[in-house]
């Protein structure tokens, strides 16, 4: 009977993915993408992965949705008109090209169909390896936490998490390299609406408290550093949208400290543990719980700061003098 829910969710997810890519307008694409994130989050709840569901709901649809909306402001709002313009200007051969494009298109669809069959067969025949559940269950008492996913993330495979903070920081640096450091610039518009200001002021402590709750709850159940980080990052985005950008208010060294503290503390802790005679990130079981909580808190602060910085920097990337550039082409 519960197969009904699963199959409807699966059909919905596939349909949304297709519509997302086939929609003629970009605004349709972005909002359908939000719905797609919701369907995936529900699918993960059905599969018993509540941590993944929280992460997906928070970051992959909320944060990315805001980023895409911000990008759409720069691009044209309606793809079709613009595309005709583009083709008229840049690609005068497009009318004659339709026939010669037929063959590549046919090849693409044939290849995709074949690939679909291969992928379905491969997924169907994945051998039963047993997984790592038993190993994780056996080591769980030594890890210092009670929730297996948190134990894997911050104890058994802590270097993954450490490098992941590094990847986010690297992404931020790459964005700086592409668009210039516009983090410390003040945006022009403050929230002029009293209701909007009140809502931002109300949601900031709620988000902070809920993030802290998730962080602490990660010890015993779904939750943890990433989920808390996204919620705290949402605080930064809300404040930025309300005209109080965090990074231009606090002093520079504090911003840089917030961005790097998670990475640095993680690394120092790892080397101290190595100096004490263990392997990298091998916590002593007696203190593991406390150490994990400290590491989680600092990592969450770092990731939240990095997400806020990514949004702030992308939001400040303005298109300069569009008319002149387009006319020279």
């Amino acid at each position, binding site marked *: 009977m519960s197969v009904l829910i699963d199959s409807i969710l699966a059909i919905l997810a596939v349909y949304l993915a297709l519509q997302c890519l086939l929609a003629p307008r970009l605004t349709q694409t972005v909002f359908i993408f939000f719905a797609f994130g919701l369907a995936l989050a529900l699918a993960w709840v059905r599969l018993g992965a509540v941590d993944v569901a929280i992460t997906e709901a928070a970051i992959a649809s909320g944060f990315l949705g805001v980023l895409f909306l911000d990008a759409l402001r720069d691009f044209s709002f309606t793809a079709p008109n613009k595309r005709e313009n583009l083709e008229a200007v840049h690609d005068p051969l497009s009318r004659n090209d339709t026939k010669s494009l037929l063959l590549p298109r046919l090849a693409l669809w044939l290849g995709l169909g074949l690939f679909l069959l291969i992928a379905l067969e491969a997924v169907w025949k994945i051998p039963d390896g047993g997984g790592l559940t038993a190993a994780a269950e056996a080591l769980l008492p030594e890890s210092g936490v009670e929730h297996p996913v948190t134990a894997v993330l911050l104890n058994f495979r802590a270097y993954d998490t450490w490098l992941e903070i590094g990847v986010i920081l690297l992404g931020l640096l790459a964005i700086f390299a592409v668009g210039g450091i516009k983090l410390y610039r003040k945006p022009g518009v403050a929230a002029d*609406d009293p*209701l*909007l200001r009140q*809502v931002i002021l*109300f949601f900031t402590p*709620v988000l902070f408290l809920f993030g802290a709750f998730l962080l602490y709850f990660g010890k015993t159940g779904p939750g943890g550093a990433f989920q808390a980080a996204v919620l705290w990052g949402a605080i930064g985005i809300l404040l930025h949208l309300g005209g109080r950008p965090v990074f231009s208010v606090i002093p520079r060294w504090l911003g840089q400290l917030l961005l790097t503290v998670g990475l640095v503390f993680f690394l120092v802790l790892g080397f101290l543990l190595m100096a004490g005679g263990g392997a990298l990130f091998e916590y002593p079981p007696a203190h593991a719980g406390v150490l994990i909580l400290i590491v989680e808190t600092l990592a969450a602060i770092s990731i939240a700061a990095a997400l806020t910085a990514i949004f702030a920097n992308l939001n400040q990337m303005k298109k300069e003098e569009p008319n002149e550039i387009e006319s020279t082409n």
Partner: protein
Amino acid sequence: MIKEVITVILLVVGCFFFLAGTLGVLRFPDLFSRLHALTKADNLGLGFIAAGMALHIASPWAALKIFSIWLFTLLASSTSCYLIARFQREQEQSKNKKERG
């Protein structure tokens, strides 16, 4: 037994309001009436479903959490209703101004 009957009734009523909200979004002619249908009817439906589930789960901590979820949703959705309506009005005004001038 009586608890289950009440839960079923609450959930059915909640579903009815959700259907009403969705139909309103689909059928009403302009944005403002659609906003009205969606943000009122859906929140009422969510309230009924929340009450039903709080009764079914029957633990005071969960009931408190569900109630706070409903309260947040009321706040959030009334705000977004107002913001969307204001956004739309501003867009229309600027469009009119452009057409006139």
